[in-house]
């Protein structure tokens, strides 16, 4: 069983974020593996392990100036990594990303493709399903558990009111939530091994997708960024044993009680 996991390298979400002159998120600094994607990597490793054969490949699009995030996935246990990196890709939207990743994934024809439900920096949550459509594959989003039996994948998919059991034949694409599995930490041995694992770098020209990507391919433009209506801090009291009573009085004042 061969699994491709789409992973994104992103600026540390805990660090302050800013937009550059063309309204793109500033990604010039250090990049890390999006935590949202560590669940997919772990799930893939466990599924391949259970199947008893095959390997996990991580595929990414973005800056290759820093590949620490991909090395992290390799250190967790992925066999190889592919990154499509090109200055021409700046400003590519979710659909353009899906076209690029589809071109890469087609070469491997994996049994299963895993993505996160949404990325931590872009959080459009649409790239994976666009990718599935471009590849002509079925997809199941919002998985909270995944099991493969033979050539069928069975997913518990979150819903508004609980969850559904959904099945589909392989090959297929599944997006995972943070609840799907507990990601491992890379071991020292894994980190050492990752240094010699294959990491392939491709350009948009290699994939023949120049006109579909970048700002022109995106066919959307940012007009403006303005300050939103902001709330102001109200009263704040240190609890002296009277906190609960103060809340009751406040709820009365706004007629909730």
């Amino acid at each position, binding site marked *: 069983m061969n699994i491709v996991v789409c992973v994104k390298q992103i600026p540390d979400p805990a660090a302050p974020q800013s937009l550059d002159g063309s309204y793109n998120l500033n990604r010039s600094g250090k990049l890390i593996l999006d935590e949202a994607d560590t669940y997919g990597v772990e799930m893939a490793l466990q599924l391949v392990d259970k199947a008893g054969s095959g390997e996990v490949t991580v595929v990414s699009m973005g800056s290759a100036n820093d590949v620490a995030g991909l090395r992290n996935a390799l250190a967790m246990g992925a066999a190889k990594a592919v990154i499509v990196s090109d200055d021409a890709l700046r400003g590519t939207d979710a659909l353009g990303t899906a076209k690029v990743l589809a071109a890469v994934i087609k070469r491997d024809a994996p049994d299963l493709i895993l993505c996160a439900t949404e990325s931590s920096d872009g959080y459009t949550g649409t790239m994976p399903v*666009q990718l599935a459509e471009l590849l002509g594959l079925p997809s199941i989003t919002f998985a909270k558990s995944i099991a493969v039996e033979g050539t069928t994948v069975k997913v518990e998919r979150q819903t508004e009111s609980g969850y*559904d059991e959904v099945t589909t034949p392989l090959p297929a694409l599944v997006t995972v939530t943070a609840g799907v599995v507990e990601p491992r930490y890379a071991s020292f041995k894994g980190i050492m091994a990752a240094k010699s694992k294959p990491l392939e770098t491709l350009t948009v020209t290699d994939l023949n997708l120049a006109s579909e990507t970048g700002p022109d391919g995106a066919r959307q433009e940012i007009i403006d960024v303005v300050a939103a209506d902001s709330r102001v801090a109200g009263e704040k009291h240190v609890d002296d044993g009277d906190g609960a009573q103060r809340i009751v009085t406040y709820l009365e004042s706004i007629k909730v009680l």
Partner: protein
Amino acid sequence: MALSTIWVVLEPSSGSYTTTSLELLTHARSMATTVSGVTWGDGASLAAQAGEFGATTLYDVGDLAGGLPGAPVASAIAALMAGDRPEAILIPTSYDGRDIAGRLSARLDRPVLTNVTGLSELNGLVTEHPIFGGTQTLKARFTGEGPGIVVVRAKSFVAESAGAAPATLVSAPAGELGATGEAKISATHVEERVGPKLEEAAVVVSGGRGLGEAANYALIEQIATLLHGAPGASRAIVDAGWVPYSHQVGQTGKTVKPTVYIACGISGATQHMVGMKGAKNIVAINKDPDAPIFQIADFGIVGDALKVLPALLEALKARA
């Protein structure tokens, strides 16, 4: 009113359209001359509601035979495009809504704009997106030929009946889906839930990691019940498995706009705040006086939630 046609994806849920679907219909009719709905399941039974909120035509994909809506609904919409071309297709932010948007985008080769909380019309459609925890608003628009696909968050608009006649039902079959239609639902599990729905409750009492352990969430549930409200949660305790995902408030969870939101042991991460900063009043209990949640709270108590909440519960019980 310069747009001619908008289509709205109407998501059925237990015998009605979801509130977000109706919010989108309501807003669409203020922007376009003609508004149509696209739905699946049993369209005939909901043509009256679709019409009442502003759709003149209701395209019905029909029964999905256990299939997930993404592929068939997108395929049906793409097929309809041959006859009628809307300037925009509005889709509710929901599990199925995002699937439909993604599939449709790839089929039509048109971009999707997501996390939209505002829509206006100025030489075409202008979308608004909250960024950086809702402190700033980004405005965008589509370029190029073809309809814009817009995925809109719940509570961005207020649903109001237009009092109009039932929509005209038009069958819109999905057509041949090949492998893309193979994902099938084999069983549905519904979590027991008492009281009002989280996204509709006038009072929301939410707990976060500051509650210390899962068992203490019972305080949140009891207080919510006594206030006739709904219990909510931060993602930290959903990920930790204390409560189901359906309780999550925030960017990846639900958007709530209650009369009062009471945040207990929640730090106020930007991703949490985008889901609740539209509340009319915000109360926060946190032991850290510098917790970001206090920057947006109308009424804050700096203290131990495990002392304040039991006392609040007793005070509310005494009044009940």
